[in-house]
């Protein structure tokens, strides 16, 4: 049709050539990512303009024009932020009204958290055998350190506050909501009608009611119904509600993961003689949880931020401390955004850390490319 001969062959094979300079290196990256289309060019330029408008004033306000020294609001005379309170008040942001002579106990509880979590997450640490036991015992150890008793001075839970309170409530919620969520997810897929109905009812009820409502019910209504002798610590009540709330969402996230596991995986396990719990633990859950990591971390982060709701039982977590300082006689009128900025920084560090860790975990668990 084209008039060319049908048979053609190559006398010499082509040699490899380097890629054009415009497609590799910094220039290549910018072309591909920032200036690939006219829309992209416009977006890039607008973003740069926006940054130029906002970042320098923010840096000026936060650092360059800020006042760092002083003992009261009247010392803050500059244009910028007033950070003079940091020196006397930072411990209150971190520990709330926890007694100063017991700070070491809170510190130790947080420090011990590192190995406790480490031994749960990483299989190949030294002394792994004892480490697991330590992880299991950690909640008791931490509770003992924080609350006291048995020789240590008792700290009432209404003295808890600051970021330590957010950490305690958040970590308790995270540690408990995952297993409860797993059980609820399995329950919802169970063949036993009672288990299934209970799980569905629980999940749908909790998801259908705002968290703040649940908290009010637990704090204000519950004592009316319960006999007088039964008194549950208020902080415990809040933590239970926050945990259950997160568990319901967790259950749905994990159910999504479970549904993504092909039937063949269950069958292979059954055919080899593994029981239900063995199959779940060894075959199904490791895969389902891996798929669910983004959703799980999402729920964790949500839970962690919900810990600021302890304010409704009159406890001053880090956000409460931020508000408290704004209305303080010494600092009134001089300090407002600053304290929120500090609280935001604390939250950001933890939440961003969780998010980075989850990305790292996903990469590490990816068995398809290695």
């Amino acid at each position, binding site marked *: 049709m084209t008039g060319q001969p049908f048979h053609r062959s190559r006398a010499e094979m082509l040699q490899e050539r380097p890629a054009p300079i415009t497609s590799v290196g910094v220039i290549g990256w910018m072309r591909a990512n920032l200036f690939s289309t006219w829309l992209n060019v416009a977006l890039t330029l607008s973003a740069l303009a926006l940054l130029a408008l906002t970042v320098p004033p923010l840096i000026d306000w936060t650092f360059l024009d800020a006042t760092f020294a002083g003992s009261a609001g009247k010392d803050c005379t500059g244009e910028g932020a007033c950070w003079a309170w940091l020196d006397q008040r930072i411990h209150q942001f971190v520990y709330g009204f926890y007694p100063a002579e017991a700070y070491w106990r809170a510190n130790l509880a947080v420090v011990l958290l590192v190995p406790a979590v480490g031994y749960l997450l990483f299989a190949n640490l030294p002394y792994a055998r004892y480490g697991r036991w330590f992880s299991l015992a950690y909640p008791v150890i931490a509770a003992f350190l924080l609350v006291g008793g048995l020789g240590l001075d008792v700290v009432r839970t209404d003295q808890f506050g600051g970021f330590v309170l957010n950490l305690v409530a958040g970590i308790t919620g995270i540690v408990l909501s995952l297993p409860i969520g797993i059980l609820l997810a399995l329950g919802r897929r169970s063949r036993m009608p009672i288990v299934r109905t209970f799980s569905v009812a629980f999940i749908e009820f909790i998801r259908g009611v705002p968290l703040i409502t649940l908290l009010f019910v637990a704090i204000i209504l519950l004592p009316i119904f319960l006999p007088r002798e039964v008194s549950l610590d208020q902080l415990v009540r809040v933590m239970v509600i926050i945990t259950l709330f997160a568990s319901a969402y967790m259950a749905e996230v994990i159910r999504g993961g479970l549904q993504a596991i092909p039937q063949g*995986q269950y069958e292979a396990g059954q055919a080899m003689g593994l029981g239900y719990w063995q199959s779940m633990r060894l075959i199904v859950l490791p895969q389902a949880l891996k798929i669910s990591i983004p959703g799980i971390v999402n729920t964790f982060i949500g839970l962690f931020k919900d810990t600021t709701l302890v304010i409704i039982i009159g406890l001053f977590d880090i956000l409460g401390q931020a508000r408290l300082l704004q209305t303080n006689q010494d600092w009134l009128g001089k300090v407002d955004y600053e304290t929120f900025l500090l609280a935001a920084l604390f939250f950001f560090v933890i939440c961003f850390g969780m998010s980075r860790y989850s990305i790292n975990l996903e990469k590490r668990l990816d068995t398809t490319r290695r």
Partner: protein
Amino acid sequence: MPEAEAEAGPGGAEDPIIQIVGLNKWFGAFHVLRDIDLMVEARERIVICGPSGSGKSTLIRCINRLEEHQEGRVVVDGTELTHNLKNIDVIRREVGMVFQQFNLFPHLTVLENCTLAPIWVRKMPKAEAADIAMEYLTRVKIPEQADKYPGQLSGGQQQRVAIARSLCMRPKIMLFDEPTSALDPEMIKEVLDVMVDLAGTGMTMLVVTHEMGFARQVAHRVIFMDEGQIVEQNEPETFFNDPRSDRTKLFLSQILSH
């Protein structure tokens, strides 16, 4: 039939290792298995074929209770399959199964795939389980892949791992459900070779397959199923050369014509 003839033939004085009597099964209202009677002797090798939807998979899945039957008796190695969970566990330990889609565990290495059941079901020490796994991985000719993940292997290699994984439980019976149907043509032979090799060890095998060369080479008996029933069964030569039923003839003409 080269190595297949060498070892002792099936049966002998013992009872059949699998006894299926009057088996009926329904999926909802659909009568999928109808009055199946099947005796399988120890060391016997059976190939099951038949058109799609004829109930071949369902039949062999009734043997390890991946499917539950409603009528009739299924007795495996002297244990009857009932609702008794103990019996089901006992039988699953003795019966290995290889699936069309391999069903390897993607989050575990090849070696871990192979040692999982021995460790958790047979309560075998890890080191011993690993030794056995390496023995079978060598048998299926991929010991060097032991530390890789299934996702990094070719289909043929994955299916050989799946066979090794089943063998690590040292089962008395092996069930194969179309083990080569999901494979590219160039990989079918490597899997069939492993199965022929396994046949040489005297394993009792029930194989659902349309690989007629394999059936001729290895099977003691070929069973043809259609519409949930066993339509015809015979030893391979006669089955292929002189089928009796019209359905069998039609089926054979269809699969042999390409």
